[in-house]
């Protein structure tokens, strides 16, 4: 049951941030439904803005699976999901631009196909200092595939080439 719900969440969720928000939204909706109580107060502006998209996403969640979640298995299911977050090693990608939703989906699908792991999620950060390309950090190793690293690597060659065009 826990795996089924996790797989359903991960079907169209690719980033860690989205995953956490959607799990929170799902929890709030289910709490209201099952226990008739919720921390989500529709009047709170900040919370609304942060969770609105996720609340929208919950509306499209498979209703059959939602109905299988009851008061008895609610706690175990969300403990399992929390365990998944704490145990999984997140891949962090550094972009120079802010990717939109389609780009995130594309990257997410590509990652899952390339790694052969359907449940991989990634985190992304924005670092304009990289100039171009990207950098990846996974399990404490940071690999820099950016333009900045390349320029640094070829600094001597670039200086020589530019030097040819300078008037002495």
């Amino acid at each position: 049951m826990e795996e089924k719900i996790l797989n359903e969440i991960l079907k169209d969720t690719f980033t860690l941030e989205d995953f956490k928000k959607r799990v929170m939204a799902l929890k709030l909706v289910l709490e209201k439904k099952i226990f008739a109580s919720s921390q989500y107060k529709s009047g709170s502006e900040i919370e609304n803005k942060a969770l609105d998209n996720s609340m929208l996403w919950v509306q499209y969640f498979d209703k059959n699976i939602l109905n299988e979640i009851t008061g008895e298995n609610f706690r175990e299911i969300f403990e399992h999901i929390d365990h998944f977050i704490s145990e999984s090693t997140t891949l962090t990608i550094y972009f120079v631009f802010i990717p939109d939703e389609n780009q995130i989906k594309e990257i997410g699908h590509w990652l899952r196909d390339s790694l052969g792991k359907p449940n991989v999620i990634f985190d992304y950060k924005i670092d304009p200092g990289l100039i171009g390309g990207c950098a990846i950090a996974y399990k404490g190793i940071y690999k820099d595939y950016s333009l900045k690293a390349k320029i640094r690597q070829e600094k001597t060659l670039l200086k020589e080439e530019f030097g040819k065009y300078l008037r002495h």
Partner: protein
Amino acid sequence: MNQQEVGYVTSSRDFLVFLDGMPTAKINDLVISESGKRGWVSALHKNEVEVLMLDEGVINPGEMFKRSDSRLSISMGEYLLGRAVNPMGVSIDGKRLMATGKDIRSELDRKAPNINMRKFITEQFVTGITLVDTLIPIGKGQRELVLGDAHSGKTAFTVDLILNQRDRNVVCIYASIGKPISQLKSLLEVLKDTGAMAYTVVIAASSSEAAPLIYLTPQTAFTVAEYFQKSGRDVLLILDDIGSHAKIYREISLLSGKTPGRESYPGDVFYQHSHLFERAGNFKDENGGGSITAIPVLEVNLADFATYLPTNLVGMTDGHLLFNSNYRNQGRSPAIDISLSVTRVGRQTQKRLQNLLSSLIRELMAKASELQTISKFSSELPFQTRLTLKQKEVLDELLNQENSTRISLQMQIILLSLTFTPIFLDKDAESIKGSKTVILDIFTKDPALKDFLEKIEDFESIEDFIKKLTLLIPVINKYLMPQNINPSIQVQQKQP
């Protein structure tokens, strides 16, 4: 493609940061945050790396730290002499550090040399202070703890130790641990005005610095001391004050969640100091020769000084000098309680004559101490009792030495031996003080006295020496005639 190890901040408390990542991090690796703040790896937990921050500032959750290629280390060279730096080697005296290209980089946390790299301590570390050199001698390579209550003159004593090393080819290192900036400034001024900065390095972290930086001060001091020792020089290393270091370590440990032990100190506080003091000693030529004489300073409450930290430090050093503020208030300088001070290694380094004199003086002090009690109950004292008490009075006056004065070993022997001659028996304390100044001068000027001074080491027994000295009293008295003495004139004594 550029590859590095990184960690992300999972939590932070003040100067302590926990990182997730850095799979092959080692203790003492340096790490740098995205915003350029530096820290070093202080502990490795199962899922986290604990980092102590060297730079102050806000650390945000999720911030990335990169592991740098270097470890916790400092650049050193001859250029450090005459300079004041912080524990990371950054200059704090307003001048730029001039690395000459011949500097070497050394890690701060090094293992102490083992026993086959050391040799016996056989040479005396001359402090130029009569009381210490004669009664509580220190050897080159010894660790001698200076402890006492507040305002008992400990820091002034340590500064005198530095000033008296002029022209002795000794490198002095003063580690100021967590002291206020004002105190540091006045110390630097004194050292500069007296010319002592030429052979001194000051390593300081003031009380306003981050706790981890203050914690590193003694390690940096020992590392710099080892650099000079390996070039064959004798080094005097003063750690003022080691109690502040322990308190800072306690603060860091409690914040990082270590279980507190006695007096809330962590269980390894003994090791923190012992592994540092083990780096002092007298070394064989294969290990560079030279020596490191360590003088840690500790402020205690004398009413209760057998507490955790003082007993730890007394146990790991080769002796201690106990300073008493009551003595200082009575005008004694240095305010050392001789009966409670110990040297475990220094006596083997003393010259034979001075050693014999020291035994004689201790005998006199013990006798006088017994008789002082009896004398309170009797108005008519026998001659021998009165003589002993008078000799003790003379001795007390001769052991008194003003700050920033240096007396050579030979002159110390002569001055203290005069206690056992009749020269001072009819003089009061004020006259003795004035006479002392004159005597120090005439032994370098009068031909007969100068000749005697040069032949001091030929004497085999102290009794012979005192006999010969007694024969010179008429010569000395010539200079001490009432018209020749004006105790109100303060004569600054220049030492050979």
